[in-house]
């Protein structure tokens, strides 16, 4: 009641400090409350110390905020070793003045209490630590140990209250850890002192698979995700996998990348997959899903991009050998370091571990394409719901990182082919369905694009074959009974070839005929010309003769007139 009134009066937004812990900052919409104390509580082994440690390390590395780590349980050497297990070099951070570690040991058997005292010594040590590195962040792990060491809890409680006030006054963003009690968040009721933010860590084993979960119990003055979020602790620290917070906010590009099969690219409106999208290839056994995947990887490496191949079924050597048989040489990419294989039996680890490994690898090598072949084996290691939520998280993560992901999934012939094991088809941007087509006493491979978001894709069912140079998609032959494949297609092709040949011959014949006609016509023309020439000449001769005769007659007349002595104008 009182709290509500308070927050109503101070409607100022809580200033936040990004923790740098993957995923946590998105759940808390920005991080932990700045200058306040956050309680991290959980059973032993849930990762409280690691949480505190990473908060300081990330603060130092990413945000240049030095930190003070006060351990009440482990000495400095042990802390350095702990840090090393997460890939943190604590000694270096200390020598760089970005971290100050102090080990506070309280041994009840060594201490005799007599009279009044306070914990000013702890304050002085903290102050000294904070001043020596100019700390902005503090982690106290776990201050509850003091209850075991100091008999007078009345003094202790009063001093703790003073300590948290003191840290607040100094603007320290603090994490204190606490052991979870039976009925309370912490055994000693630390939550009573810390009212700003409480995070609960949990480690559960269900169906023999262990899962770590994190929940924000309380975050005063701030919105936060209220779900339980799975998290992983791996070689690079914490990764919290928020499903709802990444949501659908990732940006999408228009860039396209080739599938490695030119004619498949053509089917995908000529350009291939979208970069950063999720490609799902499903099909029954032996339809060539792995080969499709390998071709895709090969194309990426040809472009000089990095690729990660997660194999859950075959060993890398086996994959490389098999792919060499269809002319896809993956060995060179592996040797040049562009392609990295990660082969694991699905049952070797829990689902959480697999995802953690995959995310770490993606973090580490930063590939442009990722192949998981096949992911349908993963459900062996968890319940349907868990697998689904984990895969969604993984896909969200990959999409958020701009990685183009290709998943293959085995579907059993009995069930509906347009269905996947864990119902992730709705997440897929492009879905290729490979199937065997049985006709004419043969099984042949056919594929079609079941969907491909954001592009005008082909709607044809195409046959494809494995050649010595990779996968080739063939022309479509549609017969009276549908698409023709295999020998039927070959027969159809032959028939068409014969028809073409016949037509070509007919044309050739006609052309020869035409040529013949033309030469006959030309010969005839020449003959007519010659005849005309002859006739023209003889007629001209005739005309000449007649003209001469005509002149002779005129001459004769004149002579006659002369002889008669007729005048010239007379009869003429």
């Amino acid at each position, binding site marked *: 009641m009182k709290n509500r009134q308070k927050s109503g009066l101070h409607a100022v937004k809580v200033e936040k400090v990004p923790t740098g812990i993957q995923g946590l900052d998105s759940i808390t919409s920005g991080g932990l409350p700045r200058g306040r104390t956050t309680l991290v509580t959980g059973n032993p082994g849930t990762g409280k110390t690691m949480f505190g440690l990473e908060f300081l390390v990330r603060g130092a590395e990413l945000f240049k905020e030095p930190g003070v780590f006060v351990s009440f349980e482990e000495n400095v050497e042990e802390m350095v070793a702990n840090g090393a297990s997460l890939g943190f070099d604590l000694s270096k951070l200390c020598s760089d003045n970005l971290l100050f570690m*102090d080990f*506070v*040991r*309280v041994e009840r058997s*060594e*201490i*005799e*209490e*007599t*009279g*009044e*005292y*306070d*914990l*000013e*010594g*702890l304050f*002085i*040590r903290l*102050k*000294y630590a904070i001043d020596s590195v100019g700390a902005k962040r503090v982690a106290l792990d776990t201050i509850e140990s*003091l209850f075991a*060491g*100091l008999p007078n809890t009345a003094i202790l409680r009063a001093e703790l209250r003073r300590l948290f006030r003191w840290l607040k006054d100094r603007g320290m963003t603090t994490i204190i850890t606490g052991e979870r009690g039976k009925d309370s968040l912490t055994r000693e009721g630390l939550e009573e002192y810390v009212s700003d933010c409480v995070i609960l860590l949990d480690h559960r084993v269900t169906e023999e698979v262990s899962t770590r979960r994190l929940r924000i119990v309380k975050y005063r003055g701030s919105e936060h995700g209220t779900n339980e979020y799975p998290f992983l602790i791996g070689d690079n620290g914490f990764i919290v996998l928020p499903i709802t917070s990444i949501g659908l906010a990732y940006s999408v590009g228009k860039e396209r990348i080739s599938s490695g099969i030119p004619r498949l690219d053509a089917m995908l409106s000529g350009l291939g997959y979208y970069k950063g999208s999720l490609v799902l290839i499903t099909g029954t056994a032996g339809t060539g899903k792995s080969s499709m995947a390998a071709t895709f990887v090969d194309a990426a490496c040809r472009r000089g991009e990095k690729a990660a191949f997660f194999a859950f079924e075959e060993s890398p050597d086996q994959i490389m050998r098999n792919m060499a048989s269809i002319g896809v040489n993956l060995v060179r990419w592996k040797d040049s370091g562009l392609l990295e294989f990660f082969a694991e039996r699905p049952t070797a680890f829990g689902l959480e571990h697999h995802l953690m490994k995959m995310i770490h690898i993606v973090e580490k090598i930063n590939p442009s394409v990722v192949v998981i072949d096949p992911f349908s084996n993963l459900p062996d290691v968890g319940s349907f719901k868990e697998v689904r939520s984990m895969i969604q998280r993984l896909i969200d993560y990959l999409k958020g990182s701009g990685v183009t992901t290709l998943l293959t999934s085995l579907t059993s012939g009995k069930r509906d082919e347009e269905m996947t094991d864990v119902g992730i088809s709705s997440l897929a941007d492009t879905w290729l369905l490979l199937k065997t087509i049985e006709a004419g006493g043969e099984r042949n491979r056919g594929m079609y694009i079941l969907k491909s978001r954001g592009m005008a894709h082909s709607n044809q069912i195409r046959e494809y074959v494995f050649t010595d140079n990779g996968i080739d998609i063939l022309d479509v032959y549609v017969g009276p009974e549908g698409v023709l494949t295999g020998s039927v297609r070959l027969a159809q092709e032959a028939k068409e070839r014969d028809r073409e040949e016949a037509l070509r011959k007919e044309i050739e014949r006609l052309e020869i005929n035409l040529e013949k006609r033309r030469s006959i016509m030309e010969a005839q023309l020449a003959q007519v010309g010659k005849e005309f020439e002859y006739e023209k000449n003889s007629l001209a001769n005739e005309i000449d003769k007649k003209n001469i005769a005509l002149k002779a007659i005129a001459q004769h007349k004149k002579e006659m007139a002369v002889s008669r002595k007729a005048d010239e104008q007379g009869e003429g």
Partner: protein
Amino acid sequence: MGDGMDTDNNDEVWELRLYVAGQTQKSVAAFANLKKLCEEHLAGKYRIEVVDLLENPQLAKGDQILAIPTLVRKLPEPIKKIIGDLSNTERVMVGLDLRPV
């Protein structure tokens, strides 16, 4: 056992260190109580060193000091720690393994 303790007490120099933080009431009281007790039971064979952590905060780490005031018996070994203003003489004696003369 009693005999052995007596000989120890006779031979050895007691090295005591009192950690304080400034001249607080508790610190002053602790020093006065300690001084009185030593004069009564360890006359001539004790040495008291007062460490003010406000001046030398880095010294708090060495003896794992949390509470103020803290009395540390450096010698004779083993190290003993007594926290508080040392107002309860009986408990201080027990804490220091001192037997009344």
